[in-house]
């Protein structure tokens, strides 16, 4: 079963038609790298993939579901363009939030969150800091770690390398490849050419360019 299946999807925002009768599928273990000009609809595409927005026409199936109910949301890890972190929780507590919702014991989720942050390059003392004291790049890494922490079957990332240096971007690319290797489907919208070029060398990556209401270079279907 495809992780995401678009069938004849038409969608617009702000009076602009972003998708026009698009058919597209993404399989588990694949990375779709969505690129396009500003305003081309990359964020809207992610909203559609999360089933948070309904298309004007056509049908979208995500992990076998057509509605974004809690059972589906638990299987989706998502990082927004502007990191959305709980201001009163440390970076590690933010990362551990999906694990806490899933009922994991405090010690186990703390260890898992810190390990994930360390792997992405955030040291332990920064993992214990509140978001207000983190740099923009550290906040970005925290949100990416949280998206990955839930062990989701679908990872949706909007501009994942924004605010990150080259090393950070490389770590993010490694994380996406590792997630895909574990069977997750990944959709990443990016305007970072170097990051995109690096990922596109990988066999699991499918280019996806939004252009005049069409998905050019689609993965399949």
């Amino acid at each position, binding site marked *: 079963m495809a992780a995401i299946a678009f069938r004849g999807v038409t969608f617009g925002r702000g009076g602009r038609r972003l998708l026009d009768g698009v058919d597209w599928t993404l399989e588990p273990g694949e990375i779709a790298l969505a690129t396009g000009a500003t305003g081309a609809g990359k964020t809207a595409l992610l909203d559609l993939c999360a089933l948070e927005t309904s298309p004007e026409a056509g049908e979208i199936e995500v992990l076998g579901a057509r509605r974004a109910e809690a059972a589906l949301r638990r299987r989706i890890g*998502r990082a927004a363009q502007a990191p959305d972190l709980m201001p009163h929780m440390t970076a590690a507590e933010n990362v551990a939030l999906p694990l806490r919702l899933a009922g994991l014991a405090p*010690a186990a989720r703390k260890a898992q969150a810190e390990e994930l942050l360390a792997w992405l390059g955030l040291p332990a003392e920064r993992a214990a800091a509140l978001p207000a004291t983190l740099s923009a790049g550290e906040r970005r890494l925290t949100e990416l770690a949280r998206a990955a922490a839930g062990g989701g079957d679908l990872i949706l990332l909007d501009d994942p390398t924004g605010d990150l240096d080259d090393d950070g971007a490389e770590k993010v690319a490694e994380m996406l490849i590792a997630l895909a290797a574990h069977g997750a489907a990944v959709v990443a919208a990016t305007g970072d050419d170097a990051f995109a070029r690096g990922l596109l060398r990988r066999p699991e990556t499918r280019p996806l360019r939004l252009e005049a209401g069409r998905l050019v270079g689609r993965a399949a279907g």
Partner: protein
Amino acid sequence: MSLRARLARTWAERRSAPWTPPGPARAALAACAAAAAFAMTLALAGGWAAERWAGAREAGFGRAATVVLAEGSEAALAAAREVLETTPGIAAVAEATPPEDAEPDVAVLAVTLATPEGPDAEALNLRLGATVPGAVYDDHAEWRGPLLASARGGRRLGWGTAAAAAASGLVVAARLGWAAGAEAGPAAVLLARLGATRGEAIRRAAAPAAWRAALGGALGAGLAGAGFAAARAMGIDPGAGTGLTLAPEGFAWAGLAAAPAALAGAAWLGARGAAARALGRAGITDGRDG
């Protein structure tokens, strides 16, 4: 999971960060709930005091009647007693002291009625007149009515004030609860996006507001209760022990718990509404209205 493991887990979870961030509306809720509970408790105590006052007036005057005997011999008193004691609607008869300006031979019997309506005054006067000439039954209808009306008015005023204070407090708690829920709305949306059900996200956003209102309310009601108790202990409650005191008596003390509980309920409903609206706006409906 064993009970010990459960307790250990619960303790560990209590040390975790709260699910939603604190905010000014939530902080204001505690202070306002304390003030509202204090006012509600005073007003409730006022309502009870009015109830007791009205009850005392009704008992004291509402069922009182007299029989005046022009000639108060033992025989006349016994005959009048017999008539009264065999009349339906009369609960008790006792000899009373005549007014100071009464004739020397006059005797007075105080009659307690079984019901506020009492017996048929005209028929009773006919029976008394036939048995004890000069005996007159007086149910004091001309002044009993206004007294009962004033008792009813006092009761209405007391409970009306209590109801108005309670309504104002609940509206304030609900509005601040709404503000606290709106403040926690983005956190509720985030929790839902991370996999919480809509109900769980709403609960996580609304529960702190309800707890704040309950704690603030308990503080306010506790202060009012302590004030009543201290005033009584210091002897500055002139009505103590007479049934006319402002301090709650008997089970009415339990009513102090009503204000915090009601305020918490109102805050919880307000916060739930605001959190549900935030989730709805974010498109998270879990099949409710989406």
